[in-house]
């Protein structure tokens, strides 16, 4: 990569879960102020702001949130450009990429990127409608499809094609809950057993309740800066060495292959190439496990394991603590929680902590290269970032 480099110099997120005592704007302000403090930047240092959120309109009745949230942080009088980004589950990851591009282009030296969702103030039906708005409303949802049902179809294809078992799917949930138990900011902090996953109420067969990420409230924020100013912000910088984004058909029915997400493959290839890393170099990854099956697709499509080997690799511990690449040390969407727009930013926070060596008792040993992978719907949008610790 030539030209300007972006660094993460501040990272913070709120506890994820049910935040009935906070509004969405309070959540975002909490995360934003903590990230700014972590970075050591002042309000007047900031050049631009991005925020990723999927559906404030349906969930809290408010659009036009970028300037509102900037005001909440006490920065209205700076008159900064503030932009909201949306791509369903990938909203946070895309907002982060916009921040990286603003730095690289020379348009900004310091950028704040937030992500948030406040989901538990509405009924289950309204939450489901929001999740379903990331799939094709006219040609999938209208005919009875849900986001979970489409992922169930993918899971069944994967099982038929590669021999993936129900127990291997469950192993993803067991692993991520074990990881989440060590994350003080996670929504679920208790280990679970395979039996718990297998006995959970069915959602769309073969997926049950414990195969699905929860609905959550939460906000996350990172501060990015350019190489021109990185030395002003202490020694805690993490380099963004690769950034890739790709798209695919919104409808699952239009894909030639249900068991690979081409958008993930393309985004990953671009990000690895830009970073000049090979997949074998990756120590830690935060991937988009909205369902257990999606972590299997992710570890395969990101190249961590061979296609079809996601299930056995998970059971063998190759993606767990002490494995070849530690996948979702935070607990992932499954256990950390999934406040949709916050997820892509929380992934970057988690990697930043591991690459700084400050992830306390869940620290991935000698973590040097991390990968963040964030997707929307059934993989119609994917964004992959490579982050590297700065020695």
């Amino acid at each position, binding site marked *: 990569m030539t030209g300007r480099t972006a660094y993460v110099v501040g990272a913070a997120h709120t506890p994820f879960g049910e935040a009935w005592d906070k509004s969405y704007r309070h959540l975002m302000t909490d995360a934003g102020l903590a990230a700014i403090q972590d970075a050591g930047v002042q309000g007047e240092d900031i050049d631009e702001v991005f925020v990723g959120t999927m559906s404030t309109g349906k969930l809290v009745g408010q659009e036009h949130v970028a300037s509102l949230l900037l005001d909440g942080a006490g920065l209205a009088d700076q008159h900064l450009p503030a932009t909201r980004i949306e791509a369903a589950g990938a909203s946070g990851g895309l907002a982060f990429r916009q921040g990286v591009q603003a730095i690289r282009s020379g348009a900004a030296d310091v950028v704040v990127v937030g992500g948030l969702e406040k989901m538990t103030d509405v009924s289950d039906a309204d939450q489901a409608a929001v999740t*379903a708005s990331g799939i094709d409303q006219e040609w999938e949802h209208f*005919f009875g*499809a849900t986001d979970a049902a489409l992922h169930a*179809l993918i899971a069944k294809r994967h099982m*038929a094609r590669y021999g993936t078992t129900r127990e291997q799917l469950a192993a993803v949930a067991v692993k991520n809950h074990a990881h989440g138990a060590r994350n003080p900011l996670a929504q679920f902090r208790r280990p679970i057993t395979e039996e718990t996953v297998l006995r959970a109420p069915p*959602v*769309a*067969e073969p997926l049950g309740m414990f195969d699905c990420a929860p609905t959550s409230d939460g906000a996350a924020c990172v501060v990015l800066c350019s190489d021109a100013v990185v030395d002003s912000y202490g020694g805690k910088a993490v380099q963004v060495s690769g950034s890739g984004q790709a798209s695919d058909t919104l409808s699952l*029915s239009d894909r030639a292959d*249900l068991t690979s997400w081409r958008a993930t493959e393309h985004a990953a290839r671009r990000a690895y190439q830009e970073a000049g890393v090979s997949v074998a170099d990756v120590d830690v990854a935060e991937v988009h496990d909205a369902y257990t099956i999606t972590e299997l697709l992710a570890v395969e499509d990101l190249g961590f394991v061979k296609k079809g080997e996601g299930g056995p690799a998970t059971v063998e511990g190759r993606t767990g603590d002490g494995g070849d690449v530690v996948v979702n040390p935070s607990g992932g969407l499954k256990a950390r929680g999934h406040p949709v727009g916050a997820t892509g930013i929380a992934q970057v926070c988690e990697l930043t902590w591991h690459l700084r060596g400050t992830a306390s008792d869940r620290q991935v040993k000698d973590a040097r290269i991390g990968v963040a992978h964030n997707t929307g719907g059934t993989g119609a949008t994917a964004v992959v970032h490579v982050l590297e610790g700065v020695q």
Partner: protein
Amino acid sequence: MTVPRFWREIPQRYNLQASKCGACDAIHYPPRTVCPECRRASIGNLEEVKLSGRGTVLESTRVHKAAPGYEAQVPYTLALIQTEEGPVITGQVVDHDGRAVSAGDDVRAVFRRLGEDGDAGVIYYGTKWVLA
């Protein structure tokens, strides 16, 4: 009564009305304005065709947490249907009365009521599938 989100005046919503590319003969459902293979060469060169309604189940799932409007039907079967003309369509397989639906099963399209926009709203119609 709210304005319906899904107008009956969009005929392909309740007919299996597809588009055929004059350049490569590929058939697409839902119909497209531009063929994704031929792109520019297909503009103004797409014709309307009707699918036969015959297909096979590519994959299916039993849905226990329903899409809005489908709550009374749980558990129901949702499938990807491979039509004989090529397009894959997402839809419910109904009236199979306990018989398991599996990949490879032959199905045919039926015209059914899908729901309505509230108690006094417009009724939606569309395609469901039954075992052939």
